[in-house]
């Protein structure tokens, strides 16, 4: 058994480097369900006229955008991912839900580069085909393949598993009610609800989240503080807004989702409807270059810019603007516009122009804060200040400039699934010591290499570390066991639309490849030894005999398919109760999965509670005193990070179609700064922290579109695991792939704490 698994793993790992993605698929042949794909053959039939070619509707998961996708499957092989014509994110004029599937074939939807490359996430040659157990110390890259039964038994029972002393298994931890945790990254509503049910039944357990969730949480907190509790995430309504002011947000680079924001912004810009847009960003992003005004603020000085605009508003339009809180007004009035201008590096004139545009657009303005703001120290408070600009000119969610997703029904559905008593708790970041940790859908070590790896590598903090992962990510590399689960293209989920999408509804994800035996409700993925996360948890739960686990196979659903059939029914019921015109019959559930979800026209969107209470429950930002100028070294530059529209942080960014466009990230540096350092386009440079403890070596992109004194690195490169290095599995060495380790990970310099002073030298 183990021999087979090792061979399979090696085969997977060895097949990178072929000229075509699909040449690789030949090597899967023996896996059975994936037939040979005629590499280089003319396009397979898009209109589903050849026997065996089918369209499957599902939901993308490569960014939080949750676009509807249509997957073309030829003889069991996924050959293409396109946009779904049913989905309001993907299609400008979505088809009504009851449109027949054959008719839908003649229509299409958009898809972004990352979403389109998902084929390669599925057929990733470095996917794990069997459960793995480490044989060396954590992170040594030495693994041994196990059967599922062995792996689950060891995880439950514990013992001297690694020859490093006795470890408590999950059973003992549960009995003792010792702390254990499930660490989940940005995951979808359906699986999140499932995990909550599991944790509710497991004594001593808690839910941990990673920085990506904490980032979204900061945004939510800021919106709640400004527009009232329960507002949740907000976004600009690009279809209706008259003026959008984006702070550290790049909707045309990293829009969530790019697919609808790209379309909406292009339409507003090109139609001469008077749409104006200003982007505050030290770097000329695509968004900034398409905007009417680029405001290249000094990184980390956004707060002074906002206060300056507020000051200008107050001075020029005393009767037309209103400070939401006297404390804020007092803070703003402490300094002059000129003073603010000097410290943020933006001329007074620009602030005045922005003030004019804001007042002219009034409630049709939208001022939003993205990761560029949220990632700064004190990011939540700066974001609150930024959002307060909306209130000053009378813009609240729903008034024309700002939108908010209207998924009130989802709260009802959640209550139904979790029980009325379930408490909504603030997400808790990982990092506290636990006896056992399960990880799914998160790669904290990539986002935070220094501190996260100390936490995960330390057996005292986490004596038993089980990663449910598809490949050996930076974090999974430190795990004791890796249980291979399926990708988003081989699982079910229920997905909420992002806040920029006002159409009420939900996305329904279902497997696009593999086979389902509807009699027993069991799903067979393309790699026989991988399983949907839910079924792994079911197996653990039944071993633990969790009494209160509502989805306990003994009483409730036994398979992922059964669970999601039930969960979707509950959601449809909740929608119906919210007076949305949907059916909650068994057929409706099937139809919804078949169409990748259900969405209703925008006109059906409900009034949100926030729009009534907005402004009445305002919490002013707690701003830090005027930031001290730490007399920066003349020679040093400020490093920021950004997101490319055709890359994704772990690990789908490693898709070769994306790496092909830009194989490595290069440090962006202003032409003048480069000249001073004798650096020209393509030169190799080192980026070093002032303490000289860490440095990165990469190429330079010398360009005029970045503020002098600032340098920038794109996220999503510089992997050290996931095929970028060799592993030993059952004592055989696997192949590594050079393209997968190209570029640098800016997080190695601790960029997660906002802009950073660095020194750049020609190498």
């Amino acid at each position, binding site marked *: 058994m183990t021999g087979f698994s090792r061979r399979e793993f090696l085969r997977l790992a060895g097949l990178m480097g072929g000229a075509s993605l699909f040449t690789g698929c030949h090597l899967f042949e023996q896996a059975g369900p994936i037939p040979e794909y005629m590499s280089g053959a003319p396009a397979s039939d898009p209109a589903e006229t050849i026997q065996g070619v089918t369209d499957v509707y599902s939901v993308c998961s490569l960014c939080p955008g949750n676009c509807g996708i249509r997957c073309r499957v030829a003889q069991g092989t996924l050959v293409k991912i396109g946009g779904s014509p049913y989905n309001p994110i993907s299609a400008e004029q979505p088809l009504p839900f009851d449109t027949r599937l054959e008719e839908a074939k003649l229509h299409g939807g958009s898809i972004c580069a990352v979403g389109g490359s998902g084929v390669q996430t599925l057929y990733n040659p470095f996917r794990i085909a069997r459960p793995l157990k480490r044989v060396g110390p954590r992170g040594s890259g030495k693994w041994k393949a196990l059967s599922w039964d062995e792996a689950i038994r060891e995880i439950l029972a514990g013992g001297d598993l690694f020859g490093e002393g006795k470890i408590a298994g999950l059973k003992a931890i549960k009995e003792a009610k010792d702390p254990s945790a499930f660490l989940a990254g940005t995951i979808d509503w359906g699986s999140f609800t499932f995990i909550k049910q599991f944790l509710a039944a497991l004594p001593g357990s808690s839910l941990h989240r990673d920085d990506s969730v904490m980032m979204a949480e900061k945004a939510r907190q800021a919106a709640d503080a400004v527009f009232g509790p329960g507002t949740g995430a907000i976004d600009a309504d690009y279809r209706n807004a008259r003026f959008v002011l984006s702070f550290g947000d790049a909707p045309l680079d990293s829009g969530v989702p790019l697919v609808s924001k790209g379309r909406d912004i292009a339409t507003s810009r090109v139609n001469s409807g008077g749409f104006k847009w200003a982007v505050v960003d030290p770097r000329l992003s695509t968004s900034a270059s398409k905007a009417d005004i680029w405001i290249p603020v000094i990184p980390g000085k956004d707060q002074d810019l906002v206060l300056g605009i507020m000051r200008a508003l107050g001075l020029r339009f005393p009767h037309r603007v209103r400070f939401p809180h006297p404390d804020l007004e007092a803070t703003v009035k402490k300094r002059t516009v000129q003073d603010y201008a000097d410290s943020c590096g933006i001329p007074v004139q620009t602030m005045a122009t922005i003030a004019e545009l804001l007042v002219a657009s009034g409630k049709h303005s939208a001022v939003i804060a993205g990761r560029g703001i949220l990632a700064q120290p004190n990011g939540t408070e700066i974001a609150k200040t930024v959002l307060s600009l909306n209130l000053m000119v009378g813009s609240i969610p729903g008034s024309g400039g700002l939108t908010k997703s209207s998924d009130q029904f989802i709260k009802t559905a959640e209550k139904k699934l979790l029980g009325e008593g379930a408490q909504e708790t603030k997400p808790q970041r990982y990092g506290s010591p636990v006896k056992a940790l399960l990880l799914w859908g998160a790669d904290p070590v990539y986002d935070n290499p220094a501190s996260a790896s100390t936490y995960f590598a330390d057996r005292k903090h986490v004596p038993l570390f089980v990663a449910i992962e598809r490949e050996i990510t930076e974090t999974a590399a430190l795990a004791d066991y890796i249980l291979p689960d399926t990708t988003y293209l081989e699982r079910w989920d229920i997905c909420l639309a992002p806040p920029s999408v006002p159409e009420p509804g939900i996305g329904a994800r279902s497997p696009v490849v593999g086979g389902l035996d509807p009699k027993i409700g069991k799903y067979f993925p393309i790699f026989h030894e991988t399983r949907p996360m839910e079924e792994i948890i079911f197996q653990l739960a039944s071993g633990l005999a969790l009494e209160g686990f509502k989805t306990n196979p003994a009483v409730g659903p036994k398979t992922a398919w059964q669970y999601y059939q039930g969960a979707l029914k509950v959601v449809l019921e909740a929608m119906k109760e919210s007076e949305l015109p949907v059916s909650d019959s068994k057929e409706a559930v099937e139809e919804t999965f078949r169409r990748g979800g259900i969405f209703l026209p925008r006109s059906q969107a409900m009034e949100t509670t926030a729009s009534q209470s907005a402004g009445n429950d305002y919490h002013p930002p707690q701003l830090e005193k005027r930031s001290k100028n730490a007399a920066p070294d003349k020679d040093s530059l400020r490093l920021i990070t950004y997101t490319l529209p055709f890359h994704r942080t772990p690990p789908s960014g490693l898709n070769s179609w994306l790496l092909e*466009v*830009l194989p490595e990230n290069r440090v962006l540096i202003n*032409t003048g700064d480069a000249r001073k350092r004798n650096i020209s*386009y393509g030169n190799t440079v080192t980026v070093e922290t002032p303490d000289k403890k860490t440095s990165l070596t990469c190429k330079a*992109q*010398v*360009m*005029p*579109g970045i503020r002098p004194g600032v340098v920038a690195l794109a996220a999503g490169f510089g992997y050290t695991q996931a095929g970028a290095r060799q592993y030993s599995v059952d004592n055989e060495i696997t192949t590594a792939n050079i393209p997968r380790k190209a570029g640098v990970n800016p997080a190695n310099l601790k960029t997660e704490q906002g802009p950073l002073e660095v020194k750049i030298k020609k190498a």
Partner: protein
Amino acid sequence: MDASVLYNVPHEVPWKIYIPFYFYFTGLSAGSFILSTLSTVFRIKRFKPMALPAAIISFLLLLLAPMCLILDLHQPLRFWHTLVPEYFNNTSALSYGSWLLTAYPIANLIYIYFIFVKNDRVTRALGMFTVPLAIFVHAYTGFAFALVRARAWWHSALMPGYFLTSALLSGIALLVVVAMVMDHYRKEKLDPELFESLRVMMIGIILIDLFWMGSFWLTLLVSNADGYASIMFALHDRLYVGGELFFGMLVPLALLIIPWTARDRVFLCLASILIICGVFLMRYSVVFIGYDIPLS
């Protein structure tokens, strides 16, 4: 103003080294053949001893040339497609070329047979028919480039003429070398006048080639952006300036003209070898400088 490329993609050069070889061998063959006909068709007695060896060389090179072409084809087994009448493309130089390249070796072989059996009358008639064929075979390679408007470096009315004369030049140079080898091993020595006339012919053709080259440079220097870029690129290319022009044309020209080298067989041989290499470099730079100028 500063500029910085954000993204762009590479475009592979579709041809390998076989293609300049193909054009080169085709030319060499045509050049040798024309030399062979000097005695058989144009009745210049002096060249009589060269008629047969020149024709044989020409034939052998003609086997090499298509081999190079087929080596470069990505579907070599489909070579016969070029001879399917329905597939004939009347705007494609290559279509004509394929037929010429088929007809010409056959005519050549028959011609050789009649030289061999010493039937001068038939040889002459055949030669008269084959000479235009040889000229077309050669000129066609020039047309293959001249008719490509995409690349300023190729798209010139001078191309066919330039290809033709340089083919002749390489043909003569090759024969000089062959004649010297023959002379070395054969009992009856060749007429020294033969070498003298070959020398004068080479000087003449090099001068014509230099004239082509000059015209080429001047027009390109004031041509559009691509033309200007090509000529500037060429003038900075060592292989082109040092190889093709200096060692391939100027040095042999000097060797052939300067009295004390001109009379020396060794230098004549050296000059011929340089010319043979120079003409190859000319084919090489025509093909690849064309690709060195990016189009997108």
